């Protein structure tokens, strides 16, 4: 039995609802939940922790049904985007607040708080009121407060999204370190792909009160099960037909564009194929190296720059293929709109979903 399991959870709060959410994960795993605004992510957290009682469905933790337990009995911690620190208490008392319920020894509490403060680099602000702290400091205090009571499961609702990019980067690193040291089980809601890449073992994608796909990071990013998820995780899904093949690879016809894949499917089967733009290699000349496979001549239709990356959109016949290159590669390849280039993708990166 899984460490944590949600079974067919339904709730309707008017504006937000859950329509049969099921998910499970194991002790020590880090699950990120992504989805557009209004998908029901926060409601899911608040049902798991017990602030709302689901109209239907059950929640199991360590094999026990906790659906009817009040939040104070569940030992599930929560960290919010807006920190929710108690403004009438200083940082020390905020962290001590939950500990008072589990540890009656003042000296032991003090030791735990000082250790936690040191590990999250907030020892110097223990005497200050939350309103005098920066966003990053407040988030570290909120995290300390949740972790110091040793929760069985930690829920985080966009914990880094209110921080500026630099602070977000350092807090994410600190968060990763804190989680690794504690072997804690986490469910983390985020909109930020960087959070997912840096922290997650598993990803669940939500839409309209439902989980659309829930699997390992690699699986969801490389094999999105539909176009919505593909769009969400930055992949592209094509529909194709499996052709007869002789070399053991699967040949797939995508509107006249034939690609070879190391995945398997039956001849004549209609399938969906996912490609990630970072797996598309771009060449100025046709590569003559035999190890390069799946070579396609394509015309650059459009591109835009984002940070140090260029997002490129090629067309080969009826098929539009997105790719991404660094700024320096873009200039080295001398890429221009309506100019032909050669694309290649390794058969291991042509994923049948």
């Amino acid at each position, binding site marked *: 039995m899984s460490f944590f399991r949600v079974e067919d959870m339904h709730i309707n709060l008017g504006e937000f609802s859950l329509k049969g959410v099921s998910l499970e994960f194991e002790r020590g795993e880090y699950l990120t939940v992504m989805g557009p605004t209004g998908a029901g992510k926060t409601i899911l957290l608040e049902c798991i922790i*017990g602030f709302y009682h689901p109209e239907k469905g059950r929640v199991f933790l360590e094999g026990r049904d906790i659906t009817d337990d*009040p939040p104070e009995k569940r030992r599930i911690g929560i960290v919010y985007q807006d920190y929710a620190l108690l403004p009438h208490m200083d940082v020390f008392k905020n962290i001590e607040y*939950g500990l008072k319920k589990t540890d009656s020894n003042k000296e032991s509490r003090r030791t735990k708080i000082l250790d936690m403060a040191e590990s999250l680099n907030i020892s110097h602000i223990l005497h200050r009121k939350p309103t005098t702290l920066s966003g990053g400091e407040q988030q570290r205090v909120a995290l300390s407060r949740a972790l110091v009571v040793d929760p069985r499961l930690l829920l985080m609702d966009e914990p880094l999204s209110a921080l500026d990019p630099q602070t977000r980067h350092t807090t994410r690193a600190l968060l990763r370190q804190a989680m690794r040291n504690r072997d804690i089980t986490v469910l983390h809601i985020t909109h930020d792909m960087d959070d997912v890449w840096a922290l997650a073992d598993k990803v669940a994608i939500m839409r309209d009160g439902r989980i659309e796909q829930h699997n390992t990071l690699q699986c969801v990013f490389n094999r999105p099960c539909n176009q919505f998820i593909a769009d969400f995780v930055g992949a592209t899904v094509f529909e194709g037909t499996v052709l007869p093949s002789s070399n053991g690879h699967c040949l797939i016809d995508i509107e006249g564009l034939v690609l070879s894949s190391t995945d398997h499917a039956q001849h004549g089967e209609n399938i969906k194929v996912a490609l990630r733009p970072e797996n598309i290699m771009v060449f100025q000349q046709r590569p003559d190296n035999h190890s390069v496979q799946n070579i396609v001549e394509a015309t650059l239709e459009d591109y835009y720059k984002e940070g140090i990356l260029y997002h490129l959109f090629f067309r080969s016949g009826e098929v539009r293929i997105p790719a991404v290159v660094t700024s320096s590669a873009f200039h080295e390849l001398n890429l221009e709109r309506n100019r032909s280039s050669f694309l290649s993708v390794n058969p291991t990166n042509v994923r049948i979903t």
Partner: protein
Amino acid sequence: MLKITPFKTGLLLSSFFITALLVCAISALFMVPSLEDVMANIWNEEMQFSLKLTLITGVISTILVMGFALPIGYTLSRLDFWGKGVVKTIVNLPVAFPELVLGLCLLLLFGKTPIGKALSAIGLDFVFTRKGVVAAQFFTALPYAIRIMKSTFDYINPRMEFVSRSLGYTQFETFIKVSLPLAGNGILAATVIAFARCIGTFGTVLILAGGSYMKTETLPITLYLNISYGNMGMALTSGIMLVVVSFVAIFIFEKTEAKL
């Protein structure tokens, strides 16, 4: 430097006009009677009785008002339940009621109905008694305090309470340790407003408690009775006393609010 436009001038003029008018009105109360008259009237037996009754009933009513306004305000802010809209409208209704009508309703409730008779049987007789003064003040001030408490709890981030629950505190413990301390300023404001409403209640007290000389006579009743007799000195002094008590309450509120 603020650029003066006709719109801003209009806004400022309307603010200053009303402020000046109020200052003149309040000053008139203090200017018209002589200091000797006011001092003599303050030590008058009727004034002493009235002041004492006003303060005692005002304090008791305010405590009762806050005792109900806190849970009702919290309920209306935090809980969703069937009939919430109706409850909200009914508890707020006395704000829009003329005090005399509210007094009449209470007079009928405590006088003629089974509820009134049942309360009377256990010694809670509200009609033409000092307990009636408290009841009248209570029902007049309660909706104001509820409104302030509801707004106060609305402004407290419910996630602070959620986090408290997740850290092992029950809903009641969370209310005591998180919601109440954070509502400090609102509680203070509601207390001062409730007290000011209680000591100033006239119509409801007059109808329910009777406004009898030296029996159920609060400061507003003293003002009314003496102005009816033509005793302007006593009427003005009771007006001054009401303004002073309200001023002291507001002053304490401002000082305490700054510390919270």
